[in-house]
């Protein structure tokens, strides 16, 4: 059990390449924090710095009030699960899981008990004498997790642990990880590029981009109150639509589009162009007073009970997620009018991408 404090943490490699800067982050005891972001955003590097596998070149990292910048990985009492599993190929599952205890000179009986307990938690009891190559991908990942939990570290680090698994197994392991966190109650830091994993697992998410922490919030906070266009576009699937619109009186408009101005936002505070964000499921075919978009159907993806309608309004792509029966009969080139859910529109500065929030209004 531990809390972590990162203050102004940055990473500059020899040769001057900067991959992280000014990361301030508090992780509470027992929290499940997810580091998420696109490839190359520095999330894995940050995790490896917490593990001690990468040197912290700027700022400080505290675990339970003690600065550990120069503490060796083994003395930080953290365990890590690697994307590649990194199981020792020549050791059985039992030896793999017991390796850290053996190094710490744990008595054989105690070691066996701990390994068997971890194996029971992860459903590996029957596989203890197998070699990694005799296991399936999901079983290997479980062994990797088992290796981390046998010694009950203060912090668990996960580096994209599910990205090598197929979709079904990934969903199943996600649930198991969530349950594991509930049962162990240990602080966990989890790196992923998959925003669904981030949303489902996290107590809080830290969204990184270009080496900066863009927003740290709960999953619903990120989804409902994104700080910037980047956050809004990264979180949520399918991704948010952005329409470049011009403020005109109490409406935001463009050719074929007219959306009412959100409450508390006088148009004189806005620039000539504002990016209006609407999530695909916030667009429908039934008339509302949330504004309308006139577009042309490009193509339809039927997903079962709902459908994705790809359309164009001039040059601007518009994606709507509507119920499948509403999409039946729509054809390429047909005109379509989408109606936005009232109050759904989020505004972002066209230049900086920062969210524009109403003056105190909800």
């Amino acid at each position: 059990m531990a809390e972590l404090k990162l203050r102004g943490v940055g990473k500059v490699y020899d040769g001057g390449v900067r991959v992280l800067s000014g990361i301030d982050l508090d992780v509470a005891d027992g929290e499940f924090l997810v580091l998420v972001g696109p490839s190359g955003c520095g999330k894995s590097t940050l995790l490896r710095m917490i593990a001690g596998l990468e040197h912290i070149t700027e700022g400080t990292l505290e675990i339970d009030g003690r600065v550990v910048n120069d503490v060796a990985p083994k003395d930080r009492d953290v365990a890590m699960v690697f994307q590649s599993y990194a199981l020792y190929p020549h050791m059985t599952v039992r030896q793999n899981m017991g390796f850290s205890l053996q190094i710490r000179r744990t008595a054989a009986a105690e070691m066996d008990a701990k390994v068997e307990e971890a194996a029971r938690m992860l459903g590996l009891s029957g596989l203890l004498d197998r070699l990694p190559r005799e296991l399936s991908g999901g079983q290997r990942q479980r062994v990797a997790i088992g290796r981390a939990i046998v010694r009950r570290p203060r912090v668990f680090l996960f580096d994209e642990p599910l990205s090598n698994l197929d979709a079904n197994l990934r969903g199943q392991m996600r649930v198991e990880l969530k349950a594991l966190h509930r049962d162990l109650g240990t602080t966990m830091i989890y790196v992923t590029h998959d925003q669904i994993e981030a949303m489902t697992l996290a107590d809080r998410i830290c969204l990184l981009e270009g080496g900066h922490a863009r927003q740290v919030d709960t999953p619903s906070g990120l989804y409902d109150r994104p700080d910037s266009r980047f956050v809004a576009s990264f979180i949520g699937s399918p991704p948010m639509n952005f329409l470049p619109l011009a403020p005109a009186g109490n409406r935001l408009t463009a050719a074929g589009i007219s959306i009412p101005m959100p409450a508390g936002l006088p148009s004189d505070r806005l620039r000539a162009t504002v990016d209006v964000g609407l999530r695909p499921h916030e667009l429908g075919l039934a008339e509302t007073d949330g504004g309308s978009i006139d577009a042309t159907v490009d193509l339809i993806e039927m997903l079962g009970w709902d459908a994705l309608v790809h359309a164009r309004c001039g040059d601007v792509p518009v994606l709507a997620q509507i119920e499948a029966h509403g999409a039946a009969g729509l054809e390429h080139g047909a005109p379509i009018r989408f109606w936005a859910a009232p109050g759904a529109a989020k505004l972002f500065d066209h230049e900086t991408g920062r969210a524009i929030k109403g003056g105190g209004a909800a």
Partner: protein
Amino acid sequence: MNRRPSWLAAVGWNLALVVACAVTLYPVLWVIKMALTPSQAFDLSPSPIPNTFSLSNFHDLVMATDMAGRWLFGHWLFNSVVVAGATTLLSLALATTAAYAFSRFVFPGRRIGMTLFLVTQMFPGVVMAIPLYLLLDAMNLLDSMVGLTLVYSTTAIPFCVWMMKGYFDTIPKDLEEAAVMDGAGRWTMFFRIILPLARPAIVVTALFSFMTAWNEFILAATFLSDETAFTLPVALQRYVGDYSTEWGHFAAGAIIVSTPVMALFFALQRHLIGGLTAGGVKG
């Protein structure tokens, strides 16, 4: 679907293989024939099948003694085994550790060090015979197994380092990072994770070092003058004289010398398997 090779092609291939085997085995059979023929004369008949069967050549060779009644073959065998064994151990110990450093650490001179190792391989051993002779003489290591072991190790190590480094490079670094997280230090990591996974490379390296030392003739003949200090290849050469050659003894000796290498090769070949790291990390 693969086209099955035609009957004619199969016969052709097998015939070619039989011919290749015959060409390869013919000299070997000849040596065996000479070894089993008690006369020391060079048999001119083309047949490689022995027409007599006698172990007298082996007996003469193994039981040879010098004027002082010392059992020469025992000395030679002992020398060869000790020199080859020591060379193997020394080369392995130094090459695995050096190769690991070259593979994993960044330090000044890393690249040039590997290049220098390669450069030393470009000179034939004979070129080094004179300087090495002078060095050994200065250190009083002529006619000594220690001297010969050092010389053989210096020739074997560069190749072994290249060989081992190449293999270490293929072992995923994730495994070491996992070991670091598990609390292992460098040595634990090296002995418990890296070496067991590098077994095929270690076997090849050991075999190479052993064979280098076991078969080497020129340097040994240069540095050894005392008959009891000879290794087997040097001793064998005694049977090839300026005026006469004892072909029977020579052939028997050749068989005795090559048997342990063959035995070693057969014993170790089951370790020469790839895929030891399979299953550890997602490929």
